[in-house]
Every structure is written in structure tokens, then in C-alpha cells.
């Protein structure tokens, strides 16, 4: 009966095809992440020399020689002291080193830094011990896909130990299957566990500092958060109508690290809507503070401009990290946050808002079709400062300087200088994007200036009237205002502006 059923099932071609596809995919998935069995001739020769006189399962290795299967595929053949001869494929050698079945002579360890390549190294354990025991600071460099990827913190070293049975990670392995061997306790209260592979990489990177250079600040304790403060909304850029608000995170001491150590990320979470019962995507903006702690309850805010449920949490996945988290509407998030370290033991996270959608709006698809790759930025890929770059940066600097000036008259004068710098930049441009950006910034300035000038002249006339009704205005000052009005008239965009300018000019005359 069973046989009959099986035959009936197999008769259906579609099942056979599905089974074949499934088996094919299963085979592929197995081979994709497997460590290679064979290596190149050069590597095989080098590895044979390394393994010579080592120990395999407590038996001394008499000699190791190289054999090959094809033109490119080499493996090892080992003769042990008990007279046996064994074929050693590379993947087996890696497994035995991970489980301590294959031990090198002279207190060394064989390491395979990559799970996909037969590249290997030899860790001189004695060198490692000497280095770590004399170290006063440890350079912690964050790994791939960590939010702090490739960033480094210099942390004070407290104690180094070889892992013992009572330690939590004794005999446990990392994602590559390598056993944890050592633990380094640091002054900020964190612990670092190392495999032989880690030890090898750390030595290569010179991560243990016996003497700390003068310009390097060693972090010996964590930054403890005291409170969160709101920074109210204020204008950031009058030309583009960008507003800024912020959250100030106050710590117990000075922040002795650079702003780039505090990165941000946006995390999407599908949360159940209590009303409809359906899952809805919510976005959370997170600012990460490494080497930081939240020791007590820190009250957050329910709302602050476009941020909702602003709170400070301890990162449960990483040691001594806190996260400033806020729910955001992705449509409101046009510009990324910007971190500033203040001189009052705090970090200000600035957020930006603007109603001007053209800030992030790309050009009309039909209007500009790029042929091939176009440069993304006005700057040339090489770090050389060109004439354009010098002029353009001067203009940008002047625009930012003007925006910080409270006196409108001074601000207008600085904008005039910036216009000249933009003209120079446009004249020295060598690629389209450079001239396009220089002209775009010029146009943004010219669009805003009539409004500013009208307001400035109105305020100046009003101030003169208030001071005295008898005294006449300084002719030089009037001349300056008239000059500004002539400029405004040329670039006035509305009829109303032109009328105001004409009236103001007649008053000044």
C-alpha cells in the first residue's frame, strides 16, 4: 500500500522537480560558507613548516609535507611519532586548531583570520603576553556592522587574565568557532574576551599601549548622564528657512572625545496599533553614546517639536552604552542630526526642520537624465584644494558667519562679500556641478536679500526717527542704504517689494 502511494507521489513530475530544486539549493548553501579544503602551493609549504614538530592529539608530529590533488589544490600529509601517516585537509587543520587538538611548538598558536580563506598566521603567545601585561591602555576598535564601526576609543587597562573554568565564556566560541582564551578587564568596567585570532589581530594593530602619547586621552571611567534638557526652536538658516532645536544631554564630567564618537541610526519597528490591532511601521531616531552610563532615572519628554517619546535607555546588547531615543515621523526628517560637544559637560544633539521640500527634492526626472556617473559633490575626489574649492568654501563660510550676526546691516554686508566669493568660485569652476552649485547658492542669496534689505532700511529709518526728529541722517549711512536698495531693486521678485523699495528710496533722498 505504502509503495503504491509512494509511486503515485513520485509519478507527479512537479514534485520531483521541486525536490530537485530544493536539493540543489541545499547543496549550494552547504558549500557557500564552507572553509576550503585545499590551498595554494606556497601557503601549503609555509603551513607545513609551521606544523613541523608540533603536536596532534598529544602525539608529536615528525614531519609534514605537501601533496596536491590537481594543479592548484594542495594539502598536507603528516607523519606522526607513532608511525602513522595522515592526510590533512585545510578545513580539518582549522577545526583541530580551534579545539586544541593541533598545537604548535614553542608556545605558538595557528590562526585562520578568515572563515573563507586559507590565509593563516602564527600567534607568538609569549609576545602577546608581554605586550598585554605591560599595557596601560587598550585601543578598542569597533568591528564591522557596529554603529561605531572602525572608530576607536582608548581605554585604561585594569587586569589581564587567562580564562578559567569559573569564567562565563570558558570554552565558549565566537561566531567563527574559535574559543575564547583571554579576558581583559578595563578601568571603565567593561570586559573584553579574546580568541587567539583576536589576540593575533590586536597585536597586528598595536592595540596595547605601554606608553600613551601625550595627545591621546585615555578614558578611565564612563560618562554618567545626569539629565536631559530641551533646546528651543530657533532659526538656523534664513536663506533656506531651516530651523534648529535640540536636546542637551548633561553628563557628570567633561566629554573627552570627539563628536564623531556619537553616531546616529534610524530603527524601524513594526508596532501593533492598539486601536486597529494592525502592525504599523514606526521610526525611532537613536543617538548612541559609547563609554556612557545611566545610573539613575532620567526623565525624558513626551514631545519636542517633531520628536515623540524622547527617552534615554541603556543599551542591553553592548557594554556601557546609552541610547537617546525618539520616535520620529520619517516625512519630517529632512536633515540628519548634528552632534556638538559643549564646554559645560554636555552634548547637544541638534535636529533640523524645514517646510521647504526642495531641500531634499531631486530634480524632475524628465528634465535631467544623467548619462553615466556624475560627481555627487562639488569637491573633487582627491583631497587637493583647488581654486574653486578655496573660493567656494570662503563663500560658504561667509554665509554661515552672516547668519550668526545679529545686526542686519552687518549681515547684509557679509552677504555682499559672500556674493563676490561665489562669483569667484563660479569663475574658477572646472566641472558643471561646481558652477551649478555656485550659481544656485548665488540665486538663493539674491532671492532673500531684497526682503532683508527692505527690512533693514525700514528699521534704520525708524531708528533715526525715534532718535530725533530734527537731526539729519548721516549722508554716508544714507548712501550705504541707498546702495543696498539699488541692489534690492535689481533682484526684487514681487511688485510689492519694488513699490516698497521706491518709497524707501524717496524717503532716503
Amino acid at each position, binding site marked *: 500500500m505504502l509503495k503504491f502511494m509512494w509511486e503515485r507521489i513520485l509519478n507527479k*513530475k512537479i514534485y520531483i*522537480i521541486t525536490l530537485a530544486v530544493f536539493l540543489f539549493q541545499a547543496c*549550494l*548553501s552547504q558549500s*557557500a*560558507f564552507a572553509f576550503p579544503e585545499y590551498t*595554494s602551493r*606556497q601557503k601549503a609549504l609555509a603551513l607545513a613548516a*609551521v606544523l613541523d614538530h608540533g603536536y596532534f592529539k598529544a602525539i608529536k608530529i615528525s614531519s609534514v609535507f605537501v601533496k596536491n590533488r590537481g594543479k592548484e589544490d594542495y594539502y598536507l600529509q603528516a607523519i606522526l611519532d607513532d608511525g602513522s601517516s595522515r592526510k590533512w585537509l585545510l578545513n580539518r587543520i582549522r577545526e583541530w586548531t580551534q579545539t586544541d587538538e593541533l598545537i604548535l611548538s614553542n608556545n605558538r598558536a595557528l590562526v585562520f*583570520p578568515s*572563515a573563507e580563506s586559507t590565509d593563516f*598566521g*602564527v*600567534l607568538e603567545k609569549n*609576545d602577546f603576553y608581554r605586550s598585554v601585561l605591560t599595557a596601560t591602555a587598550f*585601543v578598542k*576598535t569597533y568591528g*564591522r556592522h557596529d*554603529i561605531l*564601526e*572602525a*572608530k*576607536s576609543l*582608548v581605554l585604561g587597562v585594569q587586569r589581564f587574565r587567562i580564562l578559567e573554568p569559573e569564567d562565563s565564556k570558558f570554552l565558549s566560541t565566537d561566531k*567563527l568557532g574559535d574559543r575564547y582564551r583571554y579576558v581583559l578587564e578595563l578601568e571603565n568596567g567593561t570586559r573584553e574576551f579574546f580568541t587567539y585570532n583576536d589576540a593575533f589581530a590586536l597585536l*597586528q*594593530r*598595536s592595540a596595547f599601549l605601554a606608553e600613551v*602619547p601625550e595627545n591621546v586621552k585615555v578614558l578611565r571611567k564612563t560618562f554618567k548622564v545626569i539629565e536631559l534638557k530641551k533646546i528651543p526652536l530657533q532659526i538656523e538658516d534664513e536663506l533656506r528657512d531651516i530651523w534648529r532645536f535640540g536636546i542637551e544631554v548633561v553628563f557628570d564630567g567633561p566629554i573627552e572625545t*570627539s563628536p564623531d564618537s556619537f553616531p546616529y*541610526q*534610524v530603527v*524601524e*519597528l*513594526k508596532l501593533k496599533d492598539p486601536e486597529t490591532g494592525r502592525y504599523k*511601521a514606526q521610526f525611532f531616531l537613536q543617538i548612541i553614546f559609547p563609554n556612557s552610563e545611566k545610573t539613575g532615572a532620567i526623565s525624558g519628554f513626551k514631545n519636542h517639536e517633531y520628536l515623540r517619546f524622547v527617552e534615554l535607555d541603556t543599551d542591553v546588547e553592548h557594554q556601557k552604552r546609552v541610547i537617546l531615543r525618539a520616535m520620529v515621523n*520619517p516625512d519630517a*526628517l*529632512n*536633515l*540628519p542630526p*548634528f552632534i556638538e560637544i559643549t564646554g559645560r559637560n554636555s552634548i547637544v544633539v541638534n535636529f*533640523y526642520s524645514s517646510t521647504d521640500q526642495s531641500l*531634499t527634492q*531631486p*530634480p524632475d*526626472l524628465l528634465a535631467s537624465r*544623467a548619462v*553615466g*556617473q*556624475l560627481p*555627487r559633490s*562639488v569637491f573633487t*575626489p*582627491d*583631497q587637493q584644494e583647488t581654486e574653486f574649492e578655496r573660493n567656494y568654501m570662503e563663500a*560658504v*563660510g561667509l*554665509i554661515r558667519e552672516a547668519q550668526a550676526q545679529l545686526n542686519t546691516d552687518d549681515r547684509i554686508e557679509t552677504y555682499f562679500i559672500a556674493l563676490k566669493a561665489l562669483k569667484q568660485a563660479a569663475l574658477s569652476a572646472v566641472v558643471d556641478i561646481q558652477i551649478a*552649485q555656485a550659481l544656485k547658492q548665488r540665486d538663493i542669496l539674491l532671492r532673500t536679500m531684497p526682503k532683508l534689505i527692505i527690512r533693514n532700511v525700514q528699521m534704520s529709518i525708524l531708528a533715526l526717527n525715534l532718535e530725533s526728529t530734527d537731526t539729519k541722517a548721516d549722508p554716508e549711512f544714507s548712501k550705504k542704504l541707498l546702495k543696498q536698495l539699488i541692489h534690492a531693486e535689481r533682484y526684487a521678485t514681487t511688485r510689492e517689494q519694488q513699490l516698497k523699495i521706491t518709497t524707501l528710496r524717496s524717503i532716503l533722498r
Partner: protein
Amino acid sequence: MKQFSSTLALSLLFMFLSATLSLSANSGHMLDRFELFVDKNIPYLTFKGFFDPGKFPHINITQGSSKTETTVILPNTFINNILLPERDITSFALSGILDKMSLAEKITKTENGEINFLVTFTVSSKEKHFLVLDTKRSDSRQLTFALQRKQIKVVSAVASEGMQITSPVKAELGPVKITPREQLLLHPVTALMAYRHFDQLNVAVLNASPNLGAAQSFAVMLDRKQKRTIEKRMGMKLNIVNISSVREQTILPKTKIYFHANLLKAALILAEVLPGEQVLEPVPESRNNKLSTDVEIYVGKNFE
């Protein structure tokens, strides 16, 4: 009827396979000429012509038969025989760096009738230089290789011939020196003045999930189902330039979208449209210059 349904299933399967393969369009590079120049003591070898930056990751650089020799294989590449007729070059504008460069073009026809074309060039340097692809100086009109001197390893890792252990970059420990240019690009408001708006978003889809075909499925989903919605919302053409697996065998719990500093908005739109939960992060500075794409999507374990 049964036969018809099984034939239909089979043809659908083949159509799916061929469609996924067709995602990798048969484009490539054309070498017109080359230049050797020195910038801040680092010599660079630049090929001028037409290049597909999406195919830069497939360039294979290996050590040649001697310490001073490097072999580079440029897949999907032709040599412009009119502009670059020479195959063995021994005289260079800058003397004292390169000894010889040999170019070889190989065009083969596969059994299924497809044409494979590649260029192999071998460079012999006077000192022990090795070639590194400089993506920062490479774009659709030029392909640049930096000629770097071989470094001495910190640990005596039984220095043997051919053993190539990638040594991690030594961390800069002192206070970070920010140039005026970086300062301008770091601030979101001043950065607005430095970047142009794009009309095309180059996306790379990489597999960081235990499921082998996840990147491919994700790219198909992105290209077929979501492309129009995304393009409409972003106002940019979506261009998938690379689909591959992650080398370092990383498994990420959630799909991660890495974006360039000025592309937060585009990344948010992508995350909103894509199914599942995503994590969005700016491209780390260490990888910033190496990317020829605008957005890199690492398909995580949560993608089904």
C-alpha cells in the same frame, strides 16, 4: 491537463531563473589610454575610457610570479585598439616607478554561445609596490590603481612567500583633525551647499542572512514590485548595481541600509516601502571612500 500544468510549472521555473540571471546586465569597461602620476608621494596608475562602476568589485588583483609583479584581471573589458595599440609598455612618463606593463585581451565564446571578454594586465614595479583599486579616484570615465609599498607586518607571522593576511588599519589615536572641507560636509546645513541632487540612486544589495538567495530575492522584489513606488516617492531612478553575498560571513538580525550622509531621505523612503523592519545608518567613514554606490542594503535574517 496534467501534462500542461507540469510544462507550465517548468517553464515558469526557467523563466524565473533566466530573469534573475538577466539582472546582471552584460555591460563592461573600455580602456582607451593610461596615465601614471604621483600625488603626495603615492604613484597612481589611471586608465581612461569608459567604465561601469558597478563592476569594480569584480576586479581581481593578485601577486604575479615575483615580488615586484602584480596581475590585474578586468572582467567584461575591451581594449580600444586604435587609442591603445601597444601591448607591452616599457617607457613611462614618470621614470623610476614602473618597469613594464603588459596588456592582454581575451575574448572567448562559451558553449551556450555567450561571449566572455576580459583584459589581464601585469605590472612590474621597480620597487616592491602592489596595486590597490582606488574607488575614490575611479568613476565611469577612469579607473585608478594606487601603487602602494608593501608594509612590514607587526607580528612575525612566519613570513612566508604568498601568505597574505590582511592587516587591519592602525587606528588614529590623537585628536581627530577635521579639514575645512570635512567640516563643511559634516554639518547638515552646509553639506546641503556641497551636494547636488541626484536623479539616479545606485543601490547594492548584499546578502547578510543565512538564506543563500536572500539578496537575489530582495533585489527581484525591489526591482519588480517596489521599483515604481520607490522611484515615484524619491523622484529618482532606482538602479541596482550589485547583488552579492557578504564576504565576512556576517549574519545580521535585521536588514541594514547604509546611506551616504546626504541620502538620509532616500534611505527613509526605501525603508518605508520595503517590507519588514530595517535599520538605517550612515556609511561608516572607514568605508565611505570605497563605495561606488549611493546606498548599500545588507539583507538580514528577518527578510523572508
